[in-house]
């Protein structure tokens, strides 16, 4: 099989969309936070918390959609901690975010180990199944790529449209962008800078947690330590790559997914000559590369990283 043939198979494109799904949730979440002016480096830990909480809720009998709700709430809770530290207290967004990542990760690991002290193989749940839509799922090429994904992939695609619509077509979106670009002006207009930023961070963090939950509830069926493996950080890079636009964020996540799916297939082709680690490294190298290319022309939300206090100019 040569390289061109890989690109023409339906399984390749199906895998690309599957790999992109958690990143779509994560990029959208990070995008919402940053649009309001706050960088959320809690993302990596919130992914872990979403993966653990969602899985554990289902394992305890909450049902898949209940599990997603639990994951989103746990994500929102850690987002609220970050929001409190960075918005009313105006603390360093970098350090607070890393603190939230450490807190969310250690709470998740501690909870998992406490609930399941000694298990040789991690317990499994019944994850989301691929959709089986009459006619559509049986279409050639498009069927396997689009209509045999799980419901979570469709939820992610729906979220892209929803986030785009809210940010660009509603007064709420206008207000979020205003506090991220010029909080003084937004405040003068009577908008609550604190309220909007806190709300945006909580909502964005809930989305990030869904990205984590996809890993344990759709891609796999159990929770492993270290399973998030830098996906959150990749989302932070992808937001810059996407210039804070939901449509471009989807494109970035899909490109990343396609590249990742491609390297796995290429590995089976040329694996005998090139160490497997070269392929494992590639997605991270690609992220840095993409960041370097777009960094200069990136249109940062103008008030990103800048704390704002009411009544102080």
């Amino acid at each position, binding site marked *: 099989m040569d390289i061109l043939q890989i690109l023409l198979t339906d399984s390749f494109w199906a895998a690309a969309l599957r790999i992109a799904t958690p990143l779509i949730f994560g990029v959208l979440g990070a995008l919402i936070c940053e649009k309001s002016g706050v960088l959320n*480096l809690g993302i990596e830990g919130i992914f872990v918390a979403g993966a653990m909480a969602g899985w554990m809720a289902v394992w305890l009998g909450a049902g898949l959609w209940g599990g997603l709700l639990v994951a989103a709430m746990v994500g929102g809770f850690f987002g609220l901690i970050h929001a409190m*530290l960075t918005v009313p207290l105006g603390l360093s967004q970098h350090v607070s975010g890393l603190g939230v990542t450490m*807190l969310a990760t*250690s*709470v998740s690991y*501690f909870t998992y180990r406490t609930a399941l002290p000694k298990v040789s193989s991690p317990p499994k749940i019944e994850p989301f199944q691929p959709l089986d839509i009459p006619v559509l799922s049986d279409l050639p090429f498009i069927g396997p790529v689009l209509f045999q994904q799980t419901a979570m992939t469709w939820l992610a695609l729906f979220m892209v449209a929803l986030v785009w619509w809210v940010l660009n077509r509603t007064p709420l979106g206008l207000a979020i962008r205003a506090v991220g670009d010029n909080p003084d002006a937004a405040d003068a207009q009577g908008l609550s800078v604190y309220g909007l930023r806190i709300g945006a961070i909580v909502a964005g963090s809930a989305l990030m947690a869904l990205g984590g939950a996809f890993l344990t509830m759709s891609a796999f069926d159990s929770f492993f330590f270290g399973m998030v493996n830098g996906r959150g*950080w990749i989302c932070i890079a992808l937001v810059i790559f996407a210039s804070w636009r939901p449509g471009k964020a989807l494109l970035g996540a899909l490109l990343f997914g396609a590249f990742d799916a491609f390297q796995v297939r290429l590995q089976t082709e040329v694996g005998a000559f090139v160490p497997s*680690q070269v392929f494992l490294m590639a997605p991270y190298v690609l992220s840095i590369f993409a960041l370097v290319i777009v*960094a200069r022309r*990136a249109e940062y939300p103008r008030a990103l990283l800048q704390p704002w206090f009411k009544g102080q100019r």
Partner: protein
Amino acid sequence: MIRIEPREAPSRWWTIGIPVVSALSALLLAAIPLAAAGANIFEAYGEMYKGVFGSTFAFTEMLTRATPLIFTGLAATLAFRAKLWNIGAEGQLYLGAMAAVVVGTGMIDAPSFVLIPIILLAGATAGAAGMAGPAYLKTKFGADEVVTTLLLNFIILIFLQMMLEGPLKDPMGMGWPQSEPIVDNAILPQLLPRMRVHSGLIIALVVAAVAHVMMSKSVWGFKLRAVGENAAAALHAGIGVKRTLIGAAVISGALAGLAGVSEVAGLRGYLTTDLSPGFGYTGIVVAMLAGLSPIGVVISAVFIASIFVGADTMSRAIGVSSYLADLVVALSLICVLIGGFVARYRITRTTKGDA
């Protein structure tokens, strides 16, 4: 109405009091997960105390654990002072360890007093190179160093796996992915018989003292702080901002690299992929808890090391997961952040309409 206003210059008591209160608060807050895990809280804290102060061996184990944290804490301190967010100390540590293994496993045959400085220099250089890259990408292309250093951590760890399965693999290692052992002349000597604490600790303390003098007494230290506090003003005052940032990056990376040399040549004797249980990331907490002061780093590294070593003992004694230590470390960071706010601002009530 509630109003937040800056305090006048915080007094000395604040700068010492806040980290202490934050550390204690984090320890106290950990009682909640301990109780939730069904442990007897007093027994748990008692075991943690015994795990650090219960015997000479326990105490030296804590010092052994503090050694790499002093290095990574200093690495974060120097970078953060210039508002250069080096989150890549974990990767730079492994680069330093790899360099130590390349040079220290038989490539050079020399007596200890020659070979040890060589491997320290090799490790520091490798670590420095690991941070020079992101600093270059930041100053040249404007690429955010937080993202590049974070991603580099993953790249370097995968690169390490590749090396340990390839060129650096020990042919006598029974197939395990580990390096050849460091030669005897490159081993950092132990400080006490039958204890694991090694002279890496002495090197760390000397480096902390040098860092203290450099930051508070030298022109370079002044430039570093000026760039961190207000880069635009520093540029206006004629300070080479880019040069200062690259300099801070190189030194920060070198310090993280030394952590790797110290661990591989002082403690383990050979390199595996689990050399560091996150020393690079924990160094950030060490630095923040120290208020970005090099002398403070030594004290906070001892505190964080006590938490880890104490939690290990507690975990063995009463069966509570040792991830509790990571929880306390994370809580310490968040508490000290809030403490820093309390020191800098006060919240006052004002009558309505006044704000």
